[in-house]
């Protein structure tokens, strides 16, 4: 951040960000990031909990699947996604029937961001759930709580600091997703693609303001999550 600021003048930032349509990529990134987080929360949280408690059949296969999307280079993920959700695939054709497409659309951008950020959330959430002593959940059940209440009153509050950190990291990854995005979601531009195209078309100085904007929107959530987690843990220590 400091390095960026030392190479940027206020007037350069203002002129770059006040140009017509200059903030559209920011809006796209924020919208796609929010949808990505929602998808991760809805699908990643149960998956992480089941992985942590070993209640999934073939748990190693699921873990390998999560790790694959972490270990594969993002560009390769993008290429794989073309063969998974592209227009000539079964999924792509099914999407076509409802007038949707998973290439060069907002949906494609979300899919790419989900794939790039999911392992960070799922693995972090799995660790957070694993850290909750199952005996506490048993104790809550014996005191009369059905499983959904146990999850709400015991599991979730105890895992929350870890979940918040995992979600914040996933947010930062989604905001910065580029490799898979450039393959299947070149349009609409999010901030990373805006930086790339600006760099290609008008040079480094023009791209720097967008880089600063990306940092400003990507970093506060992890920072806030870190501070909140530290406070939550502090409260438990009394």
């Amino acid at each position: 951040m400091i390095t960026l600021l030392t190479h940027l003048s206020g007037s350069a930032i203002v002129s770059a960000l006040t140009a017509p349509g200059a903030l559209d990529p920011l809006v796209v990134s924020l919208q796609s990031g929010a949808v990505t987080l929602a998808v991760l929360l809805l699908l990643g949280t149960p998956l992480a909990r089941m992985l942590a408690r070993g209640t999934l059949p073939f748990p190693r296969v699921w873990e390998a699947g999560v790790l694959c999307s972490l270990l594969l280079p993002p560009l390769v993920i993008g290429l794989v996604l073309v063969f998974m959700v592209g227009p000539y695939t079964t999924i792509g054709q099914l999407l076509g029937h409802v007038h949707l497409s998973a290439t060069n659309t907002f949906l494609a951008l979300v899919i790419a961001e989900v794939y790039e950020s999911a392992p960070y959330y799922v693995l972090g959430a799995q660790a957070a759930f694993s850290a909750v002593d199952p005996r506490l959940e048993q104790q809550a059940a014996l005191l009369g709580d059905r499983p959904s209440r146990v999850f709400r009153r015991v599991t979730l509050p105890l895992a929350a600091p870890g979940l918040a950190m995992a979600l914040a990291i996933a947010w930062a990854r989604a905001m910065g997703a580029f490799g898979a995005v450039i393959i299947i979601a070149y349009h609409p531009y999010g901030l990373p693609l805006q930086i790339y195209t600006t760099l290609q078309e008008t040079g480094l100085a023009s791209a720097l303001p967008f880089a600063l904007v990306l940092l400003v929107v990507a970093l506060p959530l992890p920072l806030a999550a870190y501070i909140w987690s530290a406070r939550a843990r502090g409260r438990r220590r009394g």
Partner: protein
Amino acid sequence: MLEADVEVDRRDFTVRAELRVRPGERLALFGPSGAGKTTLLEAIAGLVRPRRALITLAGRVLTSTAPPLAAVPPWRRRVGLLRQDPGLFPHLSVRANLGYGPAADRSGAELIQLAGVLGVGNLLAAMPARLSGGQAHRVALGRLLLAHCDALLLDEPYAGLDSSLRRLLTNLVRELVTARQVPSVLVAHELAEAQAFADRLAVIDRGCLLQSGAPDEVVRRPATRRVAELVGYLGFVPVGGSDAAPLAGIHPERIAPGAEPGRGLVMTGTVEAARPAGAGWEAELRVADAVVTCHLPDRPAAAGSELVVTALDPPWFGPDGAAVVRPPRGEQVGA
């Protein structure tokens, strides 16, 4: 009434037990570590799946593996379980922990009254991380009592606490169980703890219930040599010359110095070792090819000396390990 007829498969053996605990009765399950005591409690609580079981509590069938099948989930069993780890919820204050159960009194009057009885009334706003081990156990016990369970299962809850706190908590639970007339089962691997709590003692070993009865009866009249070993008999002395001679079980704490033929088996042996033990002395005595341990009020003679002691009314066992009718008093056995 809590009734459990249970078979649970474990990796190394099957736990088989049949228990009946009346309302207000306190049963102690006593046995060595790994005997299957905790498994039995967990089956009653619905935390492990039994191979075969019929468990009923206050007329409700909690588990039945025979038709009509029943498997009431833990949250509907109304069975309270207190373990060695108090299991307080670390994100909730003492007050919130105490009032966790849905049956807990919402007005707070009972909570405050019980917190006072338990000695944690001034800690209601504290977080569990700030509590000492004894305080945490008291809060966990209070939480269980406030949930108004129909049965109380205590799985070595006082391990690691000092003896005065154990006594305090044991007395408290005894009083509350009697007042509320709920059946209670304590798991213990220390006999003194089991005796202090229970009005009935059941000895369990490798998943089998070996004997059940009044605590003093089980200790004084063990049904088998294995039960005798588990309840603290450290020596078995053959009386009579043949291979089929009965063995007298010698408990270190049921020894009187000197010859008292009217009170039991008089033994003459050679002192092999002696060391201070508590307020008295512990001596190892070789008697008829067996070594027996005796607790004596005074320091015995030096090693190698002859010593006469009386094993007070010892239990007798046949060659198969089963208890046999005791020979008439006045038997003597020499070194």
